[in-house]
């Protein structure tokens, strides 16, 4: 482990380092046939940081997330999490754009999916209810997912991701399918559980406003390379329409639009 990095992390917040993981990419390349999607990516994410990855469609941001979640393997290069280059799949949880709940299982059973094989029986149920309480849905444990609204389903998906206390949470456009008001609520909820748990969060989005509202740091991917690495050093909770945030947003949008 990188000593200087650990020191700075200890200085800032002990609680955060206790649950988040450091992520480090070295020369990560991913190619599908002749098409190279990621070009030798080098990246260090300290424990507990919220990193937003923005970019146009096809810039490789979703591919990067799939590599981190262990759904794909890099063509070349290494990904290390807390210094380990393998065996970390269970410490990463992925949230998709769609809730992807099993419609034939109750809300609580869906949350328990996040526990994969760990505890059995009553413990599973208790942990699932705990996670549901965190997202404010403890009363709906026995219901079918079909009766929930889109925002509620996504909250169940968040509970499913949280239930195993992951050290890294990867979000793939998690708010993309929600209406404007539900998005704001969901953003606040994600921010709140992050402050509570201190996991490392990687949020893929094409909504720059959302990136600025949530992230400590924004990476702009362009054609498989990091084109911009912006630190968002604004106090939380962030106010909507803050001029400093708007300035950062403007810079990123200019770069995205090639102005």
């Amino acid at each position, binding site marked *: 482990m990188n000593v200087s990095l650990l020191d700075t992390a200890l200085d800032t917040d002990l609680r955060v380092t206790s649950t988040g993981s450091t992520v480090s990419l070295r020369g990560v390349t991913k190619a599908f046939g002749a098409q190279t999607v990621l070009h030798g990516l080098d990246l260090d994410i300290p424990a507990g940081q919220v990193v937003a990855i923005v970019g146009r469609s096809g810039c490789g941001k979703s591919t990067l997330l799939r590599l981190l979640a*262990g759904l794909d393997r890099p063509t070349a290069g290494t990904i290390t999490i807390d210094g380990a280059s393998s065996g970390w799949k269970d410490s990463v949880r992925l949230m*998709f754009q769609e809730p*992807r709940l099993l*419609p*034939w299982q109750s809300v609580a059973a869906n949350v328990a*999916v996040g526990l994969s094989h760990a505890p059995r029986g009553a413990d599973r149920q208790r942990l699932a209810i705990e996670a549901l309480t965190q997202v404010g849905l403890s009363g709906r444990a026995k219901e*079918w997912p079909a009766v929930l609204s889109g925002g509620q389903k996504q909250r169940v998906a968040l509970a499913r991701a949280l239930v195993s206390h992951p050290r890294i949470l990867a979000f793939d456009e998690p708010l993309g399918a929600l209406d404007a008001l539900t998005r704001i609520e969901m953003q606040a909820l994600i921010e709140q559980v992050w402050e509570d748990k201190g996991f490392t969060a990687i949020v893929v989005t094409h909504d720059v406003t959302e990136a600025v509202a949530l992230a400590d740091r924004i990476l702009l991917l362009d054609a498989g390379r990091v084109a911009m690495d912006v630190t968002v050093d604004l106090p939380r909770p962030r106010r909507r329409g803050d001029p400093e945030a708007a300035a950062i947003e403007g810079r990123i949008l200019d770069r995205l639009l090639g102005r």
Partner: protein
Amino acid sequence: MKRALPWIVPALILLLWQVASGFGLIADQVMPAPTAVAEAFWRVARSGELLQDIEISTWRAFAGFAVGGGIGFALGMLNGLSGLSEKLTDSTLQMLRNIPHLALIPLVILWFGIGEEAKLFLVALGVFFPIYVNTLHGVRSVDRQLLEMGRAYGMSEGAIFWRVVFPGALPSIFVGLRYGLGIMWLTLIVAETISASSGIGYMAMNAREFMMVDVVVVSILIYAALGKLADSVARWLERTCLSWNPVYAEA
């Protein structure tokens, strides 16, 4: 009142039929009156003949269904999950599917004679295809996104099958099941009518020889009742197993 509404028309038909028979408008040799059919039912039921025939027919139907449905389900699952297996067998099965199974009756009699095997074989063959086709379709139409979620959340292959693939394919499997049950009775009726020495079809053909039209009508009604009963049980199972699905929950 609302519950009674669908029964008004059948009751009227029954009444009309009774009255027409009573006035001799319908000859007894063509169609006996409802009361005469009820009497015939009572007669064969009391002699124990009816129960025995229902028993043997039901056994044939479900034994054939278990064999054909079991193989169809297993192959449908296998071909849905394994590309190799599907490439190997699916086109052959689709070709065989176009042969009407009842067209095989002469061949089946040559192979098995008129024993139990012939009827079981025909029922199994008839039931096989709807179950196979619908199971395969069900497995193929399982949501890819859910499969990916299962893998991302570290589910084992077994857990993915039992918690994602099988429940996802279940609505389609039930379509196959209900369709297969219909074919099961149809095949059995034909097989028993052509060649049998017991069962409801035999009862009907036997009664025909002695011009007992009332018993023939009883046999037909028994077939209808058994078919309806099997379908009702399947629908109840469907509603119970698929209660998560709003489409079935409301029914």
